[in-house]
């Protein structure tokens, strides 16, 4: 187990390194620089600025400085907002994005699994068809379309909830709906099909032959096995929710990390781009790692270490 974790840890570091390197070179490959929009500044000022942010140095040197900033986790000041450091932007944006993300995942998991299980238990009944129709709609409608739709209908027409920003629990409902519906639908469909398959397994027959109650059979014997595939897609789903937050934060004017990330790219604010990217990827890679461990805990047949078993 420990050996596995250590191995995975180094793999994680390597992944982050590769992402960081790619980001660096891609970023430098995009035409333009942080300063060429500013017509007002003259050549001397620009040179001084470039010197200040080390942009006059050759690329390899910049790369090494960049790697250093990753290791120390200090990305320096933002170029476009000189009063802010990248770290302070992250510190302000992350809790908000995390709040949106965690609620989204929770809502998607709980409603998706419930919908899937109910549909499977009422296989080919009205509830099943209804749930799966909702699921197909949820998968096929992109989150930004859903976002505009709920803003129009629920916020503007019905005036039930605020349309934007992030000030109170009421403000959180629409963005979470917009972001969670897709993952919820995916989870519901997966849970349903996996549950249907699990219910035909021999060990379910054994459990029935023991005289266990239907509730115990579903919860203790079926659900745990049926949720295995859901756990495997959790990583992908997480990545989806993460990228989804960029769009949703933009639409709902939520001051999360996505806002700074998109802004950073638009303004070629190199330290901000690098800082947010490295932060996002580290976070995601760590989550994937946790999902893997969780899978091993849920299914004893998955060996996290070499020895054991027959």
């Amino acid at each position: 187990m420990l050996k596995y974790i250590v191995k995975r840890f180094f793999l994680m570091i390597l992944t982050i390194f590769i992402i960081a390197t790619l980001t660096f070179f891609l970023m430098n490959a995009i035409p333009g620089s942080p300063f060429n929009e500013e017509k007002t500044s003259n050549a001397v000022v620009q040179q001084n600025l470039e010197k200040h942010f080390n942009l006059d140095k050759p690329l390899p040197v910049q790369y090494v400085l960049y790697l250093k900033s990753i290791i120390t986790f200090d990305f320096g000041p933002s170029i476009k907002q000189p009063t802010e450091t990248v770290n302070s932007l992250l510190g302000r944006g992350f809790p908000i994005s995390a709040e949106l993300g965690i609620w989204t995942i929770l809502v998607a998991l709980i409603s998706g699994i419930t919908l899937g299980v109910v549909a499977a238990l009422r296989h080919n009944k009205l509830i099943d068809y209804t749930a799966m129709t909702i699921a197909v709609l949820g998968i096929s409608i992109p989150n930004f379309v859903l976002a505009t739709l709920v803003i129009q209908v629920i916020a503007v027409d019905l005036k039930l909830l605020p349309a934007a920003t992030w000030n109170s629990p009421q403000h959180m409902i629409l963005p979470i709906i917009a972001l969670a519906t897709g993952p919820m639908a995916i989870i519901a469909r997966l849970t349903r099909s996996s549950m249907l398959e699990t219910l035909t397994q021999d060990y379910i027959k054994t459990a029935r032959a023991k005289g266990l109650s239907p509730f115990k059979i579903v919860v203790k014997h079926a659900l745990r096995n049926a949720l295995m595939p859901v756990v495997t897609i959790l990583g992908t789903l997480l990545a989806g929710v993460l990228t989804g937050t960029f769009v949703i934060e933009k639409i709902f004017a939520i001051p999360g990390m996505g806002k700074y990330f998109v802004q950073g790219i638009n303004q070629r604010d190199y330290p901000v781009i690098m800082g947010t990217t490295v932060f996002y990827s580290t976070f995601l890679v760590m989550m994937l790692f946790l999902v893997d461990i969780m899978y091993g805990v849920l299914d004893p047949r998955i060996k996290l270490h070499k020895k054991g078993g027959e």
Partner: protein
Amino acid sequence: MEKILDIKDLHVSFTTYGGEVQAVRGVNLDLHKGETLAIVGESGCGKSVTASSIMKLIPSPPGKITKGSIHFKDQDLTKMSNKDIRKIRGVDISMIFQDPMTALNPTLTVGDQLTEGLKQHKKISSHDANEQAIEMLNLVGIPNPKERMKQHPHQFSGGMRQRIVIAMALICEPELLIADEPTTALDVTIQAQILQLFNKIQEQTGVSIILITHDLGVVAKIADRIAVMYAGKVIEVGTRREIFYNPQHPYTQGLLNSVPRLDQRGDQLIPINGTPPDLFSPPKGCPFTARCPKAMEVCENVYPVHTKLSDTQEVDCWLQDERAKKYIAT
């Protein structure tokens, strides 16, 4: 001896897209205390459906008991509510399925699966349940039961898993054990060990056993009586002696000729040609007609008379009719 199970005129159908499959078409069977009854017959003849019907374990839908009764002691199991039948399952009657590799839940420990039935049905502390489970594992011959309780099914071999399944079935001390092809998925040497285990258990606990198999070699060792099924019906039943040495139904005779037997060394094995009839529209006459070497005109159109040959042997075949005997003689 006391009768503990009495199945009368059992009919079971499955509604499928292709129509109604009449899987079981009027089965009569009974079982006495401490007895081992074997049900034999080719794959698809309705053995598992008959056995699963006893505890209402047929998948429903599509399956349904359309007619008949199953009396266990004084109660008709077919008329019981789902809630009441759950109190019978695992307590009075237990069932073992064919494949030990899939019969246990891969994500739960063996100990958990062994004790959950006890905990469900009896007021018992976790500690006592564990003790009882360890005792049971000892009985079925699992070494180091205490440590093994904490392990998961994948850490056991197929034969060991079947022993666990048997221990699980016996833990509430049922009066009837139904074993559906319990040795089919196992190696030959392991098969013999498991059959010995059944013998030992019956001696120690006095449990009645219904043993389902398509292998006559298996029943030769442990069955007291044998019921031969064909196309959803019991076509011949008798003691082991009667079935092995005085089989009257041509299908039973065919079955015996198609398996190797220790007492008839050197005899050629003769397979039964052809396939069983379609159960969507079973023939109105004898279902064996198309494959029967002794078939007569009447066989195709009228279902054969049920004949009692002795206190224990019964057969459904036109050859038992006086008129057929004359017909054959001439």
